[in-house]
């Protein structure tokens, strides 16, 4: 079951490559939240109850509901154009993300010596690199945050594979990441939206030599 969920997660990454509208990105993030809820439910059922409830709460409330609603609110409030406006054509994005997934597949088969479960490692590394790829190739500040959130999901999957041993570390990491991603990034996105007419990275090029 975990395998199916993680494969669905990787497919959602590829789907982001061709997604055109910002609302699609948000929906994908929500779907990823549900997938992570499922995976953590199956994986962590034997750890102590408080931690377990905290992690489930985090995935279902924050990743699936709060962040998508918040992003929708930001987009509506700042009248952002609904297109993602990538620098690259969609086809190339899909090809590159597929290459990333393929590369992580090879990487997870190459590493030896440590018994990390391959499917977790694959999903985590592909999410990290795809998140970075989205950050680099999209024009809007909001899409930067979405790329960051995808990276966060990758980190979450990676920590799930160690979650049985290190629940405290995982919790601190997750809590702080939520804190950063929602509070600070959200606040500044709103500010950027108020200050500049359009929330595009083209406005953020005044500081240079």
């Amino acid at each position, binding site marked *: 079951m975990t395998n199916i969920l993680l494969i669905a997660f990787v497919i959602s990454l590829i789907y982001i490559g061709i997604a055109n509208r910002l609302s699609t990105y948000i929906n994908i993030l929500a779907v990823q939240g549900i997938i992570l809820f499922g995976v953590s439910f199956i994986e962590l059922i034997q750890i102590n109850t408080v931690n377990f409830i905290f992690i489930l709460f985090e995935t279902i409330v924050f990743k699936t509901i709060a962040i998508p609603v918040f992003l929708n609110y930001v987009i509506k409030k700042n009248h952002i154009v609904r297109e993602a406006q990538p620098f690259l054509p969609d086809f190339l994005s899909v090809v590159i993300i597929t290459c990333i997934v393929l590369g992580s597949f090879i990487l997870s088969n190459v590493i030896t*010596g440590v018994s990390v479960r391959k499917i977790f490692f694959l999903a985590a590394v592909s999410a990290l690199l795809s998140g970075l790829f989205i950050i680099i190739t999209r024009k809007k500040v909001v899409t930067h945050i979405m790329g960051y959130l995808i990276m966060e999901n990758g980190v979450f999957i*990676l920590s799930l594979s160690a979650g049985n041993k*290190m629940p*405290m*570390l995982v919790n*601190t990491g997750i809590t*702080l990441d939520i804190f950063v991603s929602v509070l600070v990034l959200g606040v500044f996105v709103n500010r950027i939206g108020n*200050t500049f007419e359009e929330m595009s990275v083209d406005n953020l090029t005044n500081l240079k030599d």
Partner: protein
Amino acid sequence: MFGFYLIIAFSIGILTFLNRNKMVRIVLLVLFLIVQTSITIYAYCHLNEDNTRFFKFDALGVIFLCVLTILSFTTVYHSYIYLRHRNDSSRSQSIYFTSLIILIMVMTCAYLASHLGVLWVFIELTTLSVAVLIYHERTPLALEATWKYVFICSVGITITFIGIILLSIALGETEAVNFSFKAISGQLSLINASWLKTIFLFMIVGFCTKMGLFPMHTAAIDAHTVAPPPISAFISTTLMNVGFIAIFRTYTMFSHTTILHWMNMVLFLCGIISVIVSAAYLLKVNHLKRMSAYSSIEHMGLAAIGIASGGIGYFAAIFHMVLHAFVKASVFYQIEQFHRNFRTYLINETGNYFNRNLPGAMVFLLILISITAMPPSGIFVTEFWIFKALFTSSHFFILVIVLLFLSIAIYSLAKNFLHILFNQTQGLLPAIEKPKASETLSQFFLLALVFYLGINPPAAMINLLNEAVANLPK
């Protein structure tokens, strides 16, 4: 005791946030400085005693804690001058000083953390508290800089977190649930080398955002441009020390494994490219604060090279960071005064500073001597040791490259500083206010400290430095 410090400092922070009265604010700040001084003295007197599970007063932490405490006095003083001249509202002053207090507290925790997870958490918190300070002027430019700083640091800290998770996966097999530096370094020999290399790379890249080393050196540059000058002084000194301490602890942790040589190569690469990048940008830079920021990157590169070359290099790297903190802080304090005189940071629109403000010009002249490592300054000694370490570990090629690019950096720094001091351009804007000599006293004090520590370092400090490098391979 450390728990008390955290509670008291945090409550002073909250009171500063709630308070709108000018006199009460000064009293609270003085109170905080007293608390900060007492924790420093307490830490020095109780060296190596385990107080709590997550913090330890070890030599490395105490050295940088002393630097932080000295600089927090001057930074609070110069922040006060800066805010007085800006006529900010009482509310924004409260927010400024609250974030400053929280920042100092969080950096203290980061220096003393003996637990990898705790160190990570406090490094993340430094980003958040300094972001508020960078955004203090509330301009679109400040917004851009803060956004970039927060975003790059968040990505960097996420990368470090991946390294920590990978480490925990690897350690999971050896049953080391305790994540203190000491416990980890005992278990590392059981992990295979390629896995260790991956972990080290992830952790170093993340910590580089804070230290300002090559792959992530861009994080702080833009922040320097718009941050209030006293805060720039903090970003470029004590905050970079946080990154240095994180990298140094990670390096110490891994230094008894088989990947020591490979780690040295990675640090050499980071250091050399940092020096090259900063030298290249220094040639064309025209903004005084950006120039100082690039100069910081150059010094961070030298410190990384010092660690990588081993032997006396470890010792020299820590010493270099201490002295660099004092010099760079006085640069930014003086820049604040300079900006009030000229109303600009652009070097080619200024000049003739010697006639306009003699004490300030003397500060700049002494800074030029210190920062380019000319003999009486302490940085000369540390850079000499770093080169000596390079020489004894027979890295001649690296030595030549570093010296070459260092001379380019020295040329650019000297050119720009001398332009500010002696350029006789006509048609400069008249000075708006008469400069006060008293505001340069703290800079003279810090620079005198740099000269003194270089010529005659006190025995207590040498002991601390020796103890900090005691765990490393000879």
